[in-house]
């Protein structure tokens, strides 16, 4: 079954059409990379998938596990198992990370009709996942993302992904602003979450992340359209000939 199916998606932001007919299928168990130059519509795609206000679907549809997502609110999508790791994780001053994680997890569980987890249970879960990502205990006690370094913020996103166990994860430029050590750590975290009933869409500008998270498919986004799709090799091709070469050839 396709975890994600995008059918001729058109998206308008502030009256301007940014996505001009995207069609894309991501089956369960696969990792797909969406690559593209600046301004190609990468972030618009990720925000639209997450249901952000202001990203108006002017045509086409999005299906998640066969269900039409178009009308669902962001929080409903989250509860159904979609996750977006943001390019720029937001600081929430005064909200302790652990509290945020616990309330978010329980909000999702409540929406699914599952019992909420008590503080101790959540703490154990979070600690276990944090250790794998080398997130120190002290970071969990600080307000979410406030004063975190770029690498810490991205690791925090992956920690959330590990905690919420989504069926479909969209990683928006998770590699941006990371040095090579941080990049490896994040990639390991992501790879550990690859499994047969989970799909991932990795959105990136550069090939280097894809050396660590090897995708099943690579799609090239340019001018609001997917102009080329291929295997993992396509990423390398892009690295060598640049976006212009690939876009022109397409």
């Amino acid at each position, binding site marked *: 079954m396709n975890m994600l199916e995008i059918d001729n998606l058109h998206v308008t932001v502030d009256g301007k059409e940014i996505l001009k007919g995207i069609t894309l299928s991501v089956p369960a168990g696969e990792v797909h990379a969406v690559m593209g130059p600046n301004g190609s519509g990468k972030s618009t795609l990720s*925000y639209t998938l*997450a*249901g*952000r*206000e*202001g990203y108006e679907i002017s045509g086409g549809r999005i299906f998640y596990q066969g269900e039409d997502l178009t009308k669902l*609110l*962001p*929080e409903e*999508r*989250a*509860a159904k198992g979609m996750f*977006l790791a*943001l390019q*720029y*994780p*937001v*600081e*929430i*001053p*005064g*909200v302790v990370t652990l509290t*945020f994680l616990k*309330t*978010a*997890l329980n*909000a*999702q569980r409540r*929406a699914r009709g599952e019992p909420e987890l008590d503080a101790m249970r959540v703490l154990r879960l979070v600690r276990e996942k944090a250790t794998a990502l080398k997130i120190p205990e002290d970071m969990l006690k600080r*307000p979410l993302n406030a004063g975190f370094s770029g690498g810490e913020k991205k690791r925090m996103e992956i920690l*959330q992904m590990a905690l*919420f166990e989504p069926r479909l994860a969209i990683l928006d430029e998770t590699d941006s602003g990371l040095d090579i050590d941080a990049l490896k750590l994040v990639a390991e975290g992501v790879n550990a979450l690859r499994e047969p009933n989970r799909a991932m869409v990795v959105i990136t500008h550069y090939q280097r992340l894809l050396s660590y998270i090897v995708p099943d498919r690579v799609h090239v986004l340019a001018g609001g359209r997917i102009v080329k799709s291929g295997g993992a090799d396509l990423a390398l091709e892009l690295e060598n000939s640049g976006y212009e070469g690939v876009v022109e050839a397409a």
Partner: protein
Amino acid sequence: MGAVLETTERVADLAGEKYKYGFVTDIEMERAERGLNEDIVRFISAKKHEPEWMLEWRLEAFRRWKEMTEPNWARVHYPPIDYQNAYYYAAPKSQAERPKNLDEVDPKLLETYKKLGIPLSEQKLLAGVAVDAVFDSVSVATTFKAKLTEAGVIFCPISEAIRDYPDLVRKYLGTVVPVTDNFFATLNSAVFSDGTFVYVPKHVRCPMELSTYFRINASETGQFERTLIIADEGSFVSYLEGCTAPKRDENQLHAAVVELVALENAEIKYSTVQNWYPGDEEGKGGIYNFVTKRGDCRGRASKISWTQVETGSGITWKYPSCILRGDDAVGEFYSIAITNNYQQADTGTKMIHLGKNTRSRIVSKGISAGRAQNTYRGLVSINARAENARNHTQCDSLLIGARCGAHTVPYIESRNPSAKVEHEATTSKISDDQLFYCLARGFPKEEAVALIVNGFCREVLQQLPMEFAVEAQKLVGISLEGSVG
């Protein structure tokens, strides 16, 4: 002249006699007639079985009040109040007049109780349901009282203190907020209904948090509440006023006075959660909360700390202040003021540094949503002899939506060159990015706003006693319901 007035006069006569003989007799009138005059003041005093000196005190206040005019410098707007068209005394409702059970209580109120997680028995208490025999508040109150008595702490309605501890009351009442302090305080002095009296003896650490909550049923304090707390040398007391649950209230005007006295090395921590009726979405019918609260750090190295969470009332006019008289005294003010819809708040503090090495700290968090107006107004005053006085003020405003307002009016007066006064202020909005981030993590919109606002208020919430803090966090969310589209 109606029968009501006749009765009032008769009652006043009876009351006069009663003073002469010191008898306590039942006065049948449930309510004083409309309006305010000396007879009404006498009537109230008689109802409370007060001694002569108290009546004189009230009458003096009333005479002064007649000469005063209502202040209009605050950034709040309301139609003129007709003080002669209000009632100044109403007896607590009898059991028969109260709702018989929760089915007779406004479902909206019950909904809020549910959100706050208030147990059923307490819901009944709060909603004013006639108390049934199995209700266990009596036993709770009794255990509580025994513990306090053992420690020598006096904690009782102020009407009782006036009768039972007249020396203490006379020594301190009106010494922090003088009878003529301001229009509303003077009005309160003339007609105060009831309130709380606390005395903590020397070197006693009050064994528990004192809360009005424990005597919520003992007496309805009404609209002109009067509180007097004295912490004797080396003592400590933490006092909680109000509760997070909304209470039914038929009086629109509330003018309370709170006086705190901390003697040498004593500490008073005073926490308030105010959640009175804020009015409807159009701003109709909210409570006018015009309060005078002041603490006097009278002794050396004494400390008074105010923490307030103000979410209710249509209009709030309130400046809990500290007079730092003793050397090395410390004053603190931690405030959260939330206004939504058409609510107006003009609130802040005054830190009056008189003693040497006195320190004060102000943390104010104002949150404005809907079409509300939220003003921080504060004064830091350093007297010429207050060597090495220190103040730090932090004043943060958060706006939700585009139609509300936040205003900051800080006054700083320093007459001593050694003083250090710092003021920091920020104004911010909940950003779309923050909101979307929370939504994408599964928070419904209102929960997301509540979470972000609670984070914004964290420094102040941390000052609240534990059991209050949890409820206050929920209250923050509830107060902002409907503030985001």
